[in-house]
Each structure stands twice: as C-alpha cells, then as structure tokens.
C-alpha cells in the first residue's frame, strides 16, 4: 500500500521532537478525525534553521510530517510557505488516494507554524 519512501519516513522519522523556545508553533487537525500534527520552527534571518514535529496519526501522517520537515529545513520563510501537500506526496513517491487527507495536514502544520512566527514577530516589534 505504501511506497518504500513512505515506509522509510514512517519507520525512521526525521526531526521528531520539540524545540524549546521555538520561534513558531503550529498545531492542526484534531483527535476526532484521527490525525494531529504539531510543528516547531526556529528562524534566523528569515531562514528556518531548525524544525521538529510531533504527530498523532497514521503512517501517512507520520511520513508526511517527517518529509515536510526535511523539505523546509534551511529554506526561507517564503520558500517554506510555498510548500504544498502535493509536493510532499510526490517527494514520498506518492500516497494512496484515501491518505491524501492525512497528507494535507503537513502543509497546514508548516504554514500554521510560520503564521505563528509572523504573529510573534509583529508582537515583538
């Protein structure tokens, strides 16, 4: 059902954990639908220098969390905002159609963390 890439990211997820004093935190999904993702980002000079996640969810949810953190690490805020769930799914060599729902959350979680970062920036000014 899952590609080798998905299984790789599911069984050895990259960037699991939390960042203390994160510059942005995004949490999306809910326990009712079965998937929750929480993303933590560290930003320096408009570049995402570190990113970590925690996910409650299926294999696709965990694998897309892992892959999306890899894809935004070292990227500028603008580049990271341009991340789409389609790109994440492609990087994982595709996902079963009934799992597209779960893969949307990765994009949403990254975006939510960035929005949180921007909000904090404005408040800080």
């Amino acid at each position, binding site marked *: 059902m899952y590609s080798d890439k998905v299984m790789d990211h599911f069984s050895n997820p990259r960037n699991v954990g939390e960042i203390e004093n994160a510059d942005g935190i995004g949490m999306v999904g809910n326990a009712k639908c*079965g*998937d929750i993702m929480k993303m933590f980002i560290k930003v320096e000079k408009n570049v995402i220098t570190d990113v970590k996640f*925690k*996910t*409650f*969810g*299926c*294999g696709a949810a*965990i694998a897309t969390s892992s892959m999306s953190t890899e894809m935004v690490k070292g990227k500028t805020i603008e580049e990271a905002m341009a991340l789409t769930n389609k790109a994440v799914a492609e990087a994982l060599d595709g996902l079963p159609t009934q799992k597209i729902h779960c893969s949307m959350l990765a994009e949403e979680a990254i975006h939510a963390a960035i929005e949180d970062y921007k909000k904090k920036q404005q408040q800080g000014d």
Partner: protein
Amino acid sequence: MNRIYLDNAATTPVAAEVLQKMLPYFSDVYGNASSIYATGREARKALENARATVAAAIGAKPNEIYFTAGGSESDNWAIKGAAYANSGKGKHIITTAIEHHAVLNTCQYLEKKGFAVTYLPVDEFGRVTAEQVQAAITPETILITIMAANNEIGTLEPIEEIGRVARNHKTLFHSDAVQAMGAIPVDVVKWGVDMLSMSAHKIHGPKGAGVLYLKNGVRVDPLIHGGAQERGRRAGTENLAGIVGTAEAVRLATKDLQEKAAKISALRDRLIAGVIKTIPDVRLNGHPTERLPGNANFSVKFIEGEGMLLRLDMAGIAASSGSACTSGSLDPSHVLLAIGLPHEIAHGSLRFSISDKTVQEDIDEVLRVLPGIVNTLRDMSPIMA
C-alpha cells in the same frame, strides 16, 4: 522472519485437511450436480453429504442448509429476502448498532426502499438485552437480526433470550454467526433462530463460500434468481469444491470445540493480562467474560492504530485496528463509537484474534515487542501528557 498471524477474525488459512477434501472437486469430480450421468451423480452425492455435515454441526435438518458465496451473501439474502417476502405483514426491522456492515448496509438499503429500521444501542461492553428487543417490537415488526458474536470486540449477545422474545412475538429472527461458528456452540433450535449466517473462510475454510440456515417454513425471496439449484431458492451451479471445503471446515471447527476454546481463551487471557500489565493507559474493549475465546481488543491511549499495525507488521506480527485511517473513512469503527469510546480513543484500537493454530510463543512475542512500539509512537505523540 517468523510470521505471527493474529488476525484470524479477518480471515484464516485453509486447513490442510480441508484443502485435501476440496482438491478432487476441481478436476476429477467436475460434474454438474444437476446432471444425471456418473460424474454429475458423484457431485450431487458430495453436495448432499456436505449439507448433512453442516446441518449436524448446528442442530439443523439437511434441507434447511443453503450454500452461498459467503457471510455477506447469507446476511443479504436473509435480511432482504425476509423483508421482501414479509412486507405484506409489516415493514419494521430490529437490529443493533454494532452489526457487521453486511447487515448494517443491507438495513440501510432497505430503509431507502421504505422499511423502518431500529438500531438498538449497546452498553459499554457491546451487549444488547432481550428486554431492549422486546421493547422495540411493534405490530409492524417482521424481522429481528442480531449477531451472535461481534467481529471487532468479540462480545457475545444473548441470542437464546432474544430468540425467546422473537418466538413469543412470532417475529422472524436472523443471527449472523460468522464469528461464533467454531468459537462457541451453535445450536439453531436452542437459540430459536429462523435464519443463521456462516462463512467458511473464518474457520479455516475457503473464501467466497458460506451457508445460510433457513428453518423449514420460513419465507424468504431469493436473492439470486435463475436455475433450480438449492431447492429453487439460490440459483447458480454449485461451487462444489467450496461447498465440500465449507463442510469439512465446519466439521473440524465444531469438533472438540470446548477443548479448543479453552486453549484459545487461555492464550487470550495471557495476552490481555500481559498488555494491561506492561502498557499504561490501555483499556480492554468488549465484555470481560462474555467474549469470543480468541478476541482481544484494546484501546491504546495517545496513539493511533495504523501506526501500531505498521510497526507490528515490521516485527512480523499481523493484527488489525478500528482506526479511521485503517478503515479508509474519516470515522473510527462504528462498534467502538457505539460502546461509547471518544473518537481519539477509538482511533487507537488494536485487535488481536487468536486461532487454534496460535501458540504461546506467538503471544509472548507480542508482549515482548508491543510495549516498545507503543513507547516509540507515544514519544512522537503531541497529545501524550
């Protein structure tokens, strides 16, 4: 890797004895059971022997046994057939909220066709009572359909008591005994059922083969129209190899039942005790005692079922879950919601189903690897306290 199969409620491997019995009927005894020449007569004889074997196993008469293409067909036939044949008397059906989809979706279909269906709620253990059934009966009620044992949480329903209620009200009573066969004694007379569904592949028989018991005198419309097979009630050239395999599977499954059930439930209890002891925040779903000997269903808090299944699979262990992401829908299992579990706890369900081929080492291997799997996933969980 040594593969450990603990998903016997989903399906089972065909037993070697069953396969041996089936093989001649693919090519040696290829005749059509309706033909008059020798190979046809031989097929006919095998068919009627199979019918007698299945009948004897459940306390029925041979002419009350009808071979179908599996549990789903048997459920569909019993429910639609009885509904359509008896709609002149009334259009109300009683069932439960925790039936298999073969029953639930058939009832929902009938609702669209103008029938009214009562879905009885169950208690926290998944039990419905005869009193609930009694209270739901109206003069319009023509059919009660309630499973003997639930496939997800293993809860046994009080079929005998419900049978008494059905008889008192002269209402047809169907029971889906797909999971009960070979696990608990099934006796159609003692249970007071008019119709009963079975499936071969859950008891080491072939897939795509099943049985509907139809008590003599019960009126049901055919589901499959055509030739005069199965006394004109279920058309189609008989799947003889499947039928012979079904009969042998039924015979083996009901042989030494008590001994096998005792052995299987001891393994189940070892698994339940071990999981509860070694993993915090776990609950057993289903009834503590009134449950299938081979069923252990847990909810593991703070994590989701599919992740556990995938990691168990990597460790060579096959199990199942009622989480949304394994069912391919957005909602977790209707059975787990019906026993009152909140969504997030229903998503973390894990079902192991044991057979008489399971050994203690299999259970101990699960107990060895599961705590680590749960820890890994909990370390990743944003809702873990």
